[in-house]
């Protein structure tokens, strides 16, 4: 694997092997020494054009556990905000010896552009591009679902037979896009629930079932419900009338949560808007995987960094 840009590029075998390697990485967390020497001497650059402390810390932690040298470059307050282009920034980082660039950018396609423009040689890992994709988030979600269902018996398994419901702002969600492609590749059945204003055009061509009402989706025997974050600015853009109406129609309220099956897990990529898309009853319950997702994020990112960076460039091309 040269780059990780989109979960569309992953076949079932590759996706399962990433989850399996993440299992190996997870094992190292209970050891006396958590650090692995695997990427000693390699340089991983976190290039963040968009603020996201959680994702940045997760990638930093993953790279450091693998003994890579980590350079973090936040665009705010740097030359980028003074008009330096993505191209110049990337070439500068390459000149500093970056083996991999983890890029988070507000523009859809930014990671794709870095990988395919010919500007740089480094491996590119998409840490979220605009409203396009966020592949490591989807991988950690899949890992979390698999682990909750199969525990120690997870290795080698896909998500066949699982039913996952994704609720909320599908239109603007890179998490939703990456999850739709990955979860279906892994054999899961994916359902989307959103007001029609927050569904992307062409969603009928996606390998999913779309519901306009949360009840009809939750009435199915659901393995996981994934609630997406509602961004504040969506409320100003009249995608729905009010926060109260959104919470009532599409939020995982305490009542809806109580009606879920006993084994249904509740997922959220964070940060949560409590009382809007998710109630505290759901967020704080034992069935909530929110903190597991954070923990597993490090293992998934270790696995992906290992796969991208450890091998020789020729061998992995």
């Amino acid at each position, binding site marked *: 694997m040269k780059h990780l840009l989109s979960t569309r590029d992953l076949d079932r075998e590759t996706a399962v092997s990433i989850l399996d390697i993440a299992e190996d990485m997870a094992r190292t967390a209970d050891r006396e020494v958590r650090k692995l020497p695997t990427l000693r001497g390699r340089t991983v650059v976190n290039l963040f054009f968009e603020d996201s402390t959680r994702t940045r810390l997760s990638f930093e932690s993953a790279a450091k556990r693998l003994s890579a040298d980590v350079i973090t470059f936040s665009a705010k307050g740097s030359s980028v905000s003074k008009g330096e282009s993505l*191209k110049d920034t990337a070439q500068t980082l390459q000149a500093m010896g970056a083996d991999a660039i983890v890029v988070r950018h507000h523009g*859809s396609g930014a990671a794709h552009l870095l990988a395919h423009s010919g500007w740089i040689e480094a491996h590119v890992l998409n840490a979220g591009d605009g409203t396009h994709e966020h592949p490591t988030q989807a991988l950690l979600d899949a890992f979390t679902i698999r682990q909750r269902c199969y525990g120690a018996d997870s290795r080698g398994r896909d998500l066949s037979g699982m039913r996952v419901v994704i609720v909320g702002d599908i239109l603007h969600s890179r998490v939703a896009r990456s999850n739709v492609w990955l979860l279906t590749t892994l054999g899961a059945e994916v359902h989307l629930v959103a007001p029609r204003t927050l569904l992307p055009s062409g969603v009928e061509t996606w390998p999913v079932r779309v519901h306009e009402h949360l009840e009809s989706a939750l009435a199915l025997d659901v393995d996981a419900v994934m609630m997406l974050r509602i961004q504040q600015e969506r409320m100003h853009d009249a995608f729905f009338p009010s926060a109260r109406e959104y919470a009532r129609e599409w939020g995982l309220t305490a009542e809806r949560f109580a009606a879920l099956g006993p084994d249904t897990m509740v997922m959220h990529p964070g940060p949560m808007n409590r009382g809007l898309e998710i109630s505290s009853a759901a967020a704080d319950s034992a069935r909530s995987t929110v903190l597991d997702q954070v923990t597993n994020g490090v293992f998934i990112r270790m696995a992906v960094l290992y796969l991208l960076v450890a091998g020789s460039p020729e061998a992995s091309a």
Partner: protein
Amino acid sequence: MTGLLIRGASVLGQSRDDIRVRDGRIVATGSLVAELDERVIDAEGLVALPGFVDLHTHLREPGGEASETVLTGTRAAAAGGFTAVFAMANTSPVADTAGVVEQVQQLGEQHGYATVRPIGAVTAGLAGERLSEIGAMARSRAAVRVFSDDGHCVHDALLMRRALEYVATFDGVIAQHAQEPRLTAGAQMNEGALSGELGLAGWPAVAEEAIIARDVLLAQHTGARLHVCHVSTAGSVEVIRWAKARGIAVTAEVTPHHLLLTEELARGYDAHFKVNPPLRRDEDARALREALADGTIDIVATDHAPHPAEAKECTWAEAAFGMVGLESALPVLQSTMIETGMLGFADIARVLSSAPAAIGRLEGYAAPVQEGVPANLVLVDPSARRTWSTDDLRGRSANTPYRGIELAGAIVATVHAGVPTVLDGVVRPAEEVATAASAAREAARG
């Protein structure tokens, strides 16, 4: 040498004739014998067409000289077989006063590659709030007849009504950039399954069609002339067809890129394919080709929109809209319309020359390649084929979308007002053209 003799050209792709040019005019056609003081151009196997007229060019001067100037833009025009271009008003300062339009027109005259007819802004500063100095521009030396806020839509219905009524006073036409601004806030590409997948904000067809529908009704109501810029959807074609059937005074243009290219090209996030209006679906491109063939769409205009490299070498959302298109216009038309049998070269003379000249009230293009008309000519080699590259461009910017695409047809020679601007496929140096153009003007004044 004072004259030109073009030998053996196929005029409008039909009869084989010689053409004699003297003092800026075509003085004879038929079977002619070369005279001593004539430059002879061997045009065996070439098609002679009237010089092309582009009703939609961005020359960028004043203010955008890093992308293009009147000199470099008209040089690109000459390379593409154009002898007249209408320069869009979105310069800096905006062409909304007599002073700016006269300056642009005068620069064009001085360089001599092509006639430059400035387009005046409809609203002051393109701000969409109040009318610009339309009368002053119409009565200036530039004699502006086409008014457009291109790049912006005149979206206020009342302002559009007033503009249509007011320019009619000066025999003018409003060239509308049809884009409902609220429906396209932040829009990046055609709205559809692909925009949903790529996570790029969609640009719905209805945003264009709704404005065109409103405007043709306003044109009917006011009795004024409306021209629709760069039509891009099958639905827009339907609206225009309906309006024409009702006798409304509407004309429409399509760009070469909307005839050939489709939204699929956005898949690689290469911003060279980012343009306003966006590339649409395959069925839209097909509808546009059919509409051009059946006359629903009157003309082809390039929307030549030069941008510096850095405006395209960035993420899609940050990149500028637009592509250069003067040099590639005829090759794209030959590839999409002629080689498919949808148009002949006589039709090309109409859609690329006489019809746009008529809409813009530009004289001298009504009767192509005849004795007595101004010598604005282009010689096309229809057998040429080449893989397009930035080496084929003659302007200042390189943002062509056709890199690596094979296109048919090549411009071998261009003659502007009797002065050759392109010979043997090579653009003549600026000083030679400027000197010859100046001498020709002196001679014409007698």
